[in-house]
């Protein structure tokens, strides 16, 4: 102990320089790896090394939520700057014990845009389902990094079918979470008509890459018949 008198000595380890270098170098490298590879993807939605995507940690990230409250009156009438559309989608849901038993499908809508919706749960052979489907009808904004996400919960319940109308309260994606409780795979046949845009497959709101049926020959025929 060669310290001077005013120095209060505390015991220390006597680590070889090589070990010390290994510990500090290794600590800095491993720490940086944990921050860049795990904490940044999971907490800040940034993935500089691509490890968050690879490990699935990136899926942990979610923006902070703010619940939208009805109240602020919206204009009852809206002139649309896009033509009305009609879409039929079939959303496949796996048997209740599969992970694919639940999924979400939404439409992109601006505030005031309205759509009429009508859905029915069908068995694979097209017959009506007898076990009610759990659903959560809601919408939310697409928040950028660091922004809060506004969420509007319209209603949730269990049903075999449902229909109604929605006027979007804010710019975002609006639609359904469906969960099948039957032991067999089913599909939700959803028909919408009004002012909205389809979410491209893979984008938020259509993560399950569902392609609409409309646009196919039989549906065009259906649309023409409706028009007459």
């Amino acid at each position, binding site marked *: 102990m060669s310290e001077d008198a005013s120095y209060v000595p505390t015991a220390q380890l006597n680590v070889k320089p090589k070990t010390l270098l290994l510990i500090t170098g*290794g600590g800095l490298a491993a*720490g940086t790896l944990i921050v860049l590879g795990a904490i940044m993807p999971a*907490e800040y939605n940034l993935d500089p090394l691509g490890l968050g995507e690879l490990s699935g940690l990136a899926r942990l990230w979610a923006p902070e939520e703010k619940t939208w409250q009805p109240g602020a009156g919206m204009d009852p009438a809206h002139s649309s700057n896009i033509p009305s559309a009609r879409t039929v989608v079939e959303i496949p849901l796996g048997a209740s014990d599969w992970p694919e038993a639940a999924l979400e499908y939404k439409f992109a809508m601006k505030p005031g845009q309205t759509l009429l919706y009508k859905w029915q749960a069908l068995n694979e052979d097209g017959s009506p389902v007898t076990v009610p489907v759990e659903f959560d009808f809601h919408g939310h904004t697409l928040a950028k990094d660091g922004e809060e996400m506004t969420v509007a919960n319209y209603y949730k319940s269990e049903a075999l079918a449902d229909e109604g109308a929605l006027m979007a309260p804010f710019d975002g994606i609006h639609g359904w979470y469906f969960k099948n409780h039957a032991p067999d795979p089913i599909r939700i046949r959803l028909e919408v008509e009004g002012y909205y845009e389809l979410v491209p497959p893979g984008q938020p709101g259509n993560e399950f890459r569902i392609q609409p049926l409309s646009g196919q020959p039989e549906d065009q025929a259906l649309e023409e018949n409706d028009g007459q």
Partner: protein
Amino acid sequence: MDAGNSSTRTLWIAAAAIAAAILAPAAYAHAIGGKDAAFVAATVGPDPLPFMYLGAKHMVTGYDHLLFLLGVIFFLYRLKDVLLYVSLFSLGHSTTLLIGVLADINVSSFLVDAVIGVSVSYKAFENLGGFRRMGVSIDNRLAVGGFGLIHGFGLATKLQDLELNPNGLVENLLAFNVGVEIGQLIALSLILAVMTLWRTTRSFPRFAIAANALLFLAGVVLAGQQLAGFFIVGEG
């Protein structure tokens, strides 16, 4: 072989505890949140006991403060030394906790928490004899007291985030500070008890290196996480 097995177990327990501390909460430092935040925001006038509780809770669950304390007392064998260093640390963090809140000094909590992370690595490096190796001699008392000041700013920023009501501010602040010291005492007793037991094992010197290496890593992760928060989220 027996001693080897039990010491391996000790190492794994120590490693698991430190790993849990690193990986558990992450993200937004270690803030006062949820119902506690709502309570603080709603409080008008002096309300010492709840604030004391919040101070103690903040310290006991504050893994960044606890890791630093662990590093500080790692090689303190005499109770006299433990008391000296812990008092220096308390003096430091009480000073800046009170001044920070009362003078309304605004520091980014990300930056303060990053320096707290650095303090953990600093102490581990010191325990490993790193500074002596480099021929640098820093008075340990100064370092612990100085980092105490930084830890106090960390406590202050967490309280400032909560928009304390000016009515009863001083009383509540003092109560919070007393709570912090009580929480520190509780946590310290536990750490000290475990350390004392651990030191009696023959394998202690060998695993002391590993434990301080993990402590160093934990400090790097804490600092990196807060720096990432500062640059990505900005003013926190």
